[in-house]
């Protein structure tokens, strides 16, 4: 290997090319969104129990309450980000073929964005309309 003649340390070549390419940032985001989702999911489960079986008017009035809407938006935003980076890890673990992997990662981003935007748009419409 002729690289020994270059005045570059191997760190120069390694930097930015680690397994995840972004150090512990991904790991940390998974934890932060996890803590947030844990707290907010308590609100979500209570809301689900309360609303299940209720009529349209009650559901709209409850979701239209600004406090409920804000907590729901926070829960959905945090959950969608948590699941997007979580699924990314699963894809990176199991999908080895490069093209398939890129397509799967892209589909993951699209799906997560779609779910997040649709839920947020619906919640915003409900709370502004109420």
């Amino acid at each position: 290997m002729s690289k020994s003649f270059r005045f570059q340390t191997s760190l120069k070549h390694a930097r930015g090319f680690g397994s995840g390419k972004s150090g512990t940032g991904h790991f940390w985001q998974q934890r932060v969104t996890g803590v947030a989702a844990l707290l907010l999911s308590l609100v979500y489960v209570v809301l689900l129990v309360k609303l299940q079986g209720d009529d349209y008017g009650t559901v709209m009035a409850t979701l239209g309450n600004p406090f409920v809407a804000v907590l729901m938006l926070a829960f959905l935003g945090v959950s969608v980000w948590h699941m997007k980076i979580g699924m990314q890890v699963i894809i990176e673990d199991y999908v080895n073929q490069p093209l398939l992997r890129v397509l799967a990662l892209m589909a993951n981003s699209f799906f997560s964005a779609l779910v997040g935007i649709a839920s947020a748009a619906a919640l915003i419409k409900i709370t502004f309309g109420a």
Partner: protein
Amino acid sequence: MADARLAASRPLSPHLQVFRFLLTMAMSIVHRMTGGFLYVGTVFVAVWLVAAASGPDWFARVDGVYQSWIGRLILLGLVWSLIHHAIGGVRHFIWDLGYGFDKTTADRMALFNLVAGIVLTGVVAIAAFVFA
């Protein structure tokens, strides 16, 4: 360059099927599976919210599907997935803080995760039934 014999003798990650069954290993897999279920399950939340925002007719249609026995079964499964995954997450936080790595504690936490997940799902199901 790359020595073929060297490449062939590199250690392989042990495959799932050669491991002896361990509760912690099973709970690790279930954590990932419940995460996957919740990933798909967000579609149910999004559809429900969009239906509500689209008016009473759409809401009634979606509500009808969700209130059917198969709808209820799926929702119950998702509630269990959420609770199991949440407790599993707390287990991960405990490990992140540096605790619970010894075998007995890890096993106990895995068992607690499994039992508490099912019990709390039952509590939520009963509460939903009572407050319906």
